[in-house]
C-alpha cells in the first residue's frame, strides 16, 4: 500500500506511463513525454484495434473529442480552460493530461478569493532577503513559474474564484511566455521552456463572480465539459471511482449492481425533477453531479464497513443519499420526502427488490432529520 493518501496520477499510473513511453514512436511536440495519440490512449484507454500488447484502462469518461481538443490545445500556443458544472471531472482530466504530458501534475495553483499575484509569479523568503539580499536563491517561485522553468504543464484550479486582477497576471505569462523579476538587477527574466502550458479549470456555476477579461479569454481555448447524462457512462464512472476508493481504503466489500442501478435511477429521477422545477425552492441545492453520486456511495460504503455488517445494503445507501442531499431544512427535506412518497414508494411496490430497503432506509433518515 502506498504511503500517500492519494497519489497523483503520474505516481499512480507510473508503470503504465513508463510502458507507453517505451512503445511510443509517434512525433512528440516540444518536450512532451508522450505523443498526442498516446496521451489520448492513456486517458481514454486502449482497444483491441490499437494493437497494443497490454490493456490500458480508461481513466476519464466522456466524449472523445473533448480529450482530443484539449490535447491539441496544449500542443498549440494557447492555454486550456476546462469549464463545466461541479463534479464533471474537469480537475481529474487536467491532472491526467499533466501527468501524461509532463509526468508532473502537482504544479497546481488553487484559485480562491485570497489568491494573490505572488501565488502565480513568485514571492520572497523574507529572512533570506534580510540576510543575503534579493537574489534568485531567496526567491520562491510559484508552481506556474516552476512549470515555465521546467517546460511542463502548470495547473490553475478554479480560475474564476480568484479576483480579476490576479487572473490578469496570467496574460503576460501566456502571451510573452516569460516572467520578469524587476527586483533583481541581472538574471531577472524567467523564460518558459518549450512544452510549458497552463491547464485551468473553471466552474460554470461561478460565472459572473469574477468574470475573465476578454484579453485572458483570448489566450485560452475553452473546452466545455458537460454533465454526464448517459446512464451507461455514468455507471461506468461510478464503478471506476468506487473501485478505486475500495482499493485505497483496503475495504473488501461488494457493491451489488442492482444497488448501483437504484442509485443511478434515483439521481436520474431527482435530476428530472430539478429540471422541471419552477423555482430554487423546489429544487435540491445539490447539483446532482456524478461526483455527488460517488460521494453518496462512498459514504454508504464507509458506513457499512465501519459501523455496519460489512455489507452494503439499500437502507444504508438511502440514508447516505438523504444525508448528503438534504442541505437545507425544510426545503431539501420536503423535496426528498415528496420524492420518497411519490416515486420510491410506488416503485418499491411495483419492483420490490432493493427498492423496498431503499424506501425504508430513506424514510427513517428523513424522519430523523426532520
Amino acid at each position, binding site marked *: 500500500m502506498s504511503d500517500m493518501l492519494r497519489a497523483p496520477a503520474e505516481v499512480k499510473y507510473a508503470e503504465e506511463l513508463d510502458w507507453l513511453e517505451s512503445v511510443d514512436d509517434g512525433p512528440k511536440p516540444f518536450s512532451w513525454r508522450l505523443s*498526442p*495519440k498516446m496521451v489520448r490512449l492513456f486517458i481514454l484507454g486502449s482497444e483491441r484495434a490499437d494493437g497494443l500488447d497490454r490493456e490500458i484502462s480508461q481513466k476519464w469518461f466522456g466524449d472523445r*473529442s473533448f480529450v*482530443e*481538443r484539449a490535447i*491539441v490545445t496544449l500542443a498549440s500556443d494557447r492555454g486550456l480552460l476546462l469549464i463545466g458544472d461541479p463534479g464533471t471531472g474537469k480537475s481529474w482530466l487536467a491532472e491526467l493530461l499533466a501527468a501524461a504530458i509532463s509526468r508532473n501534475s502537482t504544479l497546481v495553483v488553487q484559485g480562491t478569493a485570497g489568491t494573490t499575484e505572488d501565488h502565480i509569479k513568485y514571492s520572497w523568503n523574507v529572512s533570506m532577503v534580510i540576510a543575503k539580499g534579493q537574489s534568485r536563491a531567496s526567491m520562491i517561485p510559484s508552481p506556474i513559474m516552476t512549470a515555465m522553468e521546467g517546460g511542463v504543464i502548470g495547473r490553475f484550479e478554479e480560475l474564476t474564484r480568484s479576483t480579476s486582477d490576479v487572473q490578469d497576471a496570467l496574460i503576460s505569462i501566456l502571451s510573452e511566455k516569460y516572467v520578469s523579476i524587476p527586483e533583481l538587477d541581472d538574471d531577472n527574466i524567467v523564460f518558459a521552456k518549450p512544452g510549458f502550458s497552463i491547464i485551468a479549470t473553471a466552474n460554470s456555476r461561478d460565472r459572473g463572480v469574477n468574470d475573465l477579461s476578454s484579453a485572458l*479569454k483570448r489566450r485560452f*481555448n*475553452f473546452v466545455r465539459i458537460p454533465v454526464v447524462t448517459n446512464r451507461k457512462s455514468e455507471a461506468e464512472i461510478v464503478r471506476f471511482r468506487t473501485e478505486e476508493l475500495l482499493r485505497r481504503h483496503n475495504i473488501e466489500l461488494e457493491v451489488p449492481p442492482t444497488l448501483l442501478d437504484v442509485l443511478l435511477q434515483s439521481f436520474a429521477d431527482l435530476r428530472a425533477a430539478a429540471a422541471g422545477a419552477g423555482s430554487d425552492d423546489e429544487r435540491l441545492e445539490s447539483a446532482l453531479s456524478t461526483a455527488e453520486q460517488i460521494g453518496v456511495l462512498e459514504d454508504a460504503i464507509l458506513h457499512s464497513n465501519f459501523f455496519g455488517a460489512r455489507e452494503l445494503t439499500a437502507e444504508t445507501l438511502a440514508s447516505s443519499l438523504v444525508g448528503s442531499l438534504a442541505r437545507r431544512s425544510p426545503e431539501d427535506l420536503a423535496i426528498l420526502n415528496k420524492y420518497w412518497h411519490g416515486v420510491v414508494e410506488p416503485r418499491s411496490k411495483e419492483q420490490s427488490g432493493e427498492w423496498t430497503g431503499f424506501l425504508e432506509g430513506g424514510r427513517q433518515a428523513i424522519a430523523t432529520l426532520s
Partner: protein
Amino acid sequence: MTRPFDALREQLLGAAESLAGGPAALPEILAGIVDDVDHALREPLEIFPVCHHSPASALAMLRRLREKQPTVIYLELCEDLQPLLTELRNCRLPVALQAFASQLDGFPKESAPLSVIAPITEASAEYQAIAYALETPGVELVLVDRSTDHVFQWQPDVSSPAGTPEPEEDLHGDAVGVEIGDLRPRFAELEEHLLHHGRVRHWSEWWEQYVEQPLAGADHETYRQVMVLIGSLFRRLAPHDTRRYAGDEDRERYMWTRIREHLATSGADPADCLYICGAFHAASRVPEAGSAPGTPDFAITPRTGTTWLYGLIPSSHSAIEAQFGLAPGSVSIAAANWRKQLGRLRLTPFRLDGQKGGGRKKTLPAPAAASGPVTDHLSGYLAGPPALDGLDEEELRGWCVDIVRLARRNGYLASTADAIAVFETSILLAGMRGRVRPTPYDFQDAAVTCIEKDSVPGRRDVRRLCEILLGGDRIGQVGYDALPPLARDVYDRLGPLGLNLEQRSIQRALLDLAARPELAACSQLLWMLRYLLPDQAVRPIMGSRRLGEKHIQESWDLDLGRNQRAVIELGYEGVTVEQVLEQRLRRDAWDPKATAATALKAVENSLLFLESPRLTDELGARAIELLAAERTVDDAPDVLRRIRRLLAHYRATTPVLPAWCERFVTEGYAHYCTLLPTAFVEEETGVRQVGAMLGFLFGMESLALSLGCDRTQLEIAVRQSHPESPAKIALLWAARHQLGALPLADLRVRVDELLGNPLVVPAFPQYVSGFVQALEPVPRLAPFVVETLSKAFGRLPDPVLLPWLPNLITTLRQQAAELVPVLTREAGRTFPGGLAALDAWTPPWKAPPRRRPSAGPAGPADPVAVLLRANRMVPDAVVALFGCEGDWTPVETGLPAGSGGDGVAVAGLLTAYPRAAEAVADLVCP
C-alpha cells in the same frame, strides 16, 4: 468457368478462416457480398446504385449518363409523383415533391392529413438523371417505386415526430419523407463500431472519409462494384425480421415488376436502359428481381379510395438533415463538395431549363461503346487504404479566415490570431485522428475550440457558423408557375401592395385605406390569411378586425416567402382562399366536439371575412341546434358575450334582425330557463356560468318577450331554484330582486343579518362573490354591490377577509371587461373624489333617509290629495304593486270630501276624461 470475383471470394474466405474465433456467419457474409456484386453486375438491365446526398454518386451518374446515354431510365421514386417532375423547371432547388391527402378513404380518419415528401437537391444523382431525361429528346423517365398510397398502406402507424423543430428545419411539416438511396447501417452497434474505429462522430463524416473521397474520381466500374458491395454488406448485416426489411423487399419486388411491365409494353432493349436505385436495393436477391421475362411478378395491391393531391413545396438542407437524421450541415457540405468536384473535373452537370445554368445545351458526345466483360475492381479498392486527398492549405486557410470574419460579425471577439490558431488546431486534430487533410468536421471542432468561449454572444454559436460557412443552408423556392391555383391567386391579389413576397424576409405592408380604397381587397385577403395560416406568416402590426370596426390604415408584417409551404398546402384544400375559409368554418361548426359558442365564433368569423349571408345563416342555424342539444352551461359566458356582440352588430347594420338571431334568442331564453334550476343546484356549474345564464335571460328579455316568450317561464324557473352554495344564493337573491320579488331594503336586511351572525361570517365572502357575479345580469344592483363590498372590507375579520382577497382579484381580472367598468363607475359615484372629503364623508347607506318634501299640513290640501284620500283603495293598491311603503300624511281639509268648488271641478274633470280613471281601475282590479 472462372468468374471475375473468384479470386476475391477465395481471399475473403481465407480471411474468415483466419479469424476462426469470429462469428460462424462470417464466411457466409463475406462470400455473400461478393456474390451479390457478381449477381448485380450480371443483370442485363444496368443497375446504377446510388446513395443519398452523395456527390460521388452524382458525379458517377453524370459521367455514366454522358457515356451511356440511355433511352429509358427507371428511377426509385413513388410512381405517382411523375407528373410533378416537369414542374421542377420552375423551382429553385432544393424543393420537395409532395403528395397530400386530407379526405381519407381506406385509412383511419384521425390520421388525416397524410403527406409524403421527396426532397430533390441539386447535388444528387437523381436530379442528374431527371434533368438528363427531361432535357434530352427521346429519353423516357419511369418512376417505379410504390405509390404514396402504398407508403401508408405498408406503414399504417404513422406517428408525427415529437418535439418542435427549429423554424428553418420545419419546412417539411410532419410529412413522411421518402428518399432515394438511404444507405446507413441498420443496427446501432454496427454504426457505433464504424464511427469509433473511423475516429469520426457522425455517419456522414465516416461516409465522406471512407467512401465518398475514394470514389470521387473512381471509374464507373469501380464505383458500381463498391456501391453494390456496401449495399450488400449493410443488407446482410441488417436485422431481417423487421417490418422495415420486409417493406424494403416488397419495394424491390414492386419496382422490378413495374420495370418488367414497362419493358414488355414499350419493347425497350434492357441494354439501353438504366435502373437507378439505392445501393441497398441494388444488392437485392429477392426472387422477383430481374428483368428477364418470366420472372415471378409481385401482386400489387390496389390503391385505396383516398384522393391524393400533388404539389411542390420549398425544402432546405437543414430540413432534409432534420427529416432524415443526418448530421447538421452534412447536406450543405455535400453540395459544396459537388461544386468543388465539378470544377476540379471540369464537368458540366445536367440542369433543367429555367434553372440557373440550365438552357445552355451542349450536344452530348457520342455514347461510348459497351464496356467489355466485368472485371474485378473491388480487390484493389479493398486492399489499399482509402486514398485521401492531401492537405489543401489554400482551402483550409480560406475557411479559417472566413470563420473568424463570420464570428466577428456574430459578436465574437475573434481576431487574426484566432484564424492562425484554428488553422494550427485543425491540422493537429486531423493528425490525431489519423488523416492529413482536416475534414470539415475537424475544422469545425478546431473553430469551436479556439473561438467559442464561455458564452454565445449572438444568435448563432461557432458550430452553426461553421455549417453556414461550409455551404450554408440553402432554401429552395417553388416558382410561380409550379404553384397551385390558390397560391397563385394569393400572390396575384396581393400584387397591388407592390412587395416582393417571394423574398425570404419579413416585408412590411402599409395600407392607407382612405387614400387608396382599392387596397381594401388586399386587407380583406390578409385578414383571411391571418385566420388560415400559421401565426408568423402574416401578422398585423396596426389594425384589427372586429365587428363594428373599420380601419382607415393598417400595417402588416408579411413573411410569405418563408411560409410558402403553408400557402401551398392551403392550395390542397380548395381553389380560392374564400373556399378554404368556408370549409374551415363549416368544419369547425360541424365538428363532433363543437359547442354553441364555437358555432357563434364561426358566425362571427363568417361576418368578418366572408360576405356570405347564406353561410352565416347556416352557421347560425347550426348554433341554435347545438345550443338546444347542450346539457351543460359551461360555455354560457362565451355564448352571452358572442350573441350580444352579434346582436349589436345586426342592430347597427341591418333594419331587421336575421331570422336565426331571433330564433337563437327565443330558443336560448327557453333553454336557459329550463336549465336554470339545475344549474343553481349542481356543484359542477360555477357561479360565473349561472351569472352568465341570468345575464342572457335578463339582457335578452325584452327581445325575447317581444318575440313571443313568456316571462312566467323565467319567474317559475327562479322560484324553482334552491341553491345551497352561498355564492349562488346571493345570485338568486339578485335575480329575485331583478324580478321585483325582493326589494332592496329586504336584501340589505339579509346581508346585515349575515354579517351579524358570527357563524355565517366565514362564508360571507362567498356571498359577496355571488353579488359580484350579479353585476352583469343585474347592473342596477351596482350600488348595492359596492355597499356590500365596503361592508365586507370594513367589518370582516382579517382571517376571513385576507384569504378571500386573491380570489376576488383573480375573478375581477378574469372578467375585467364585464365587471370592472361597472364596479369602478359605481365606486367613483359612491366614494369621495379627494382625500380631504373623506373625513366628512358618510356612506350613503348610513346617511339618514332623505325626507321627501311633503306637502305638510300647512295650507289647504289640494283637491287631488283630497280625492285620493277619499278613495284610498286605489293608491294603496298601486303603491303595493310598486313595492313601496308609506303612510298617509294627515291633511287638514277645509272642506268636507266631495263638497266645494274644487271637488266639483275634479269630479267634472274625471267625468269628462274617464279613460285615465278607467285605466287605473283596470290596473288595480283586472
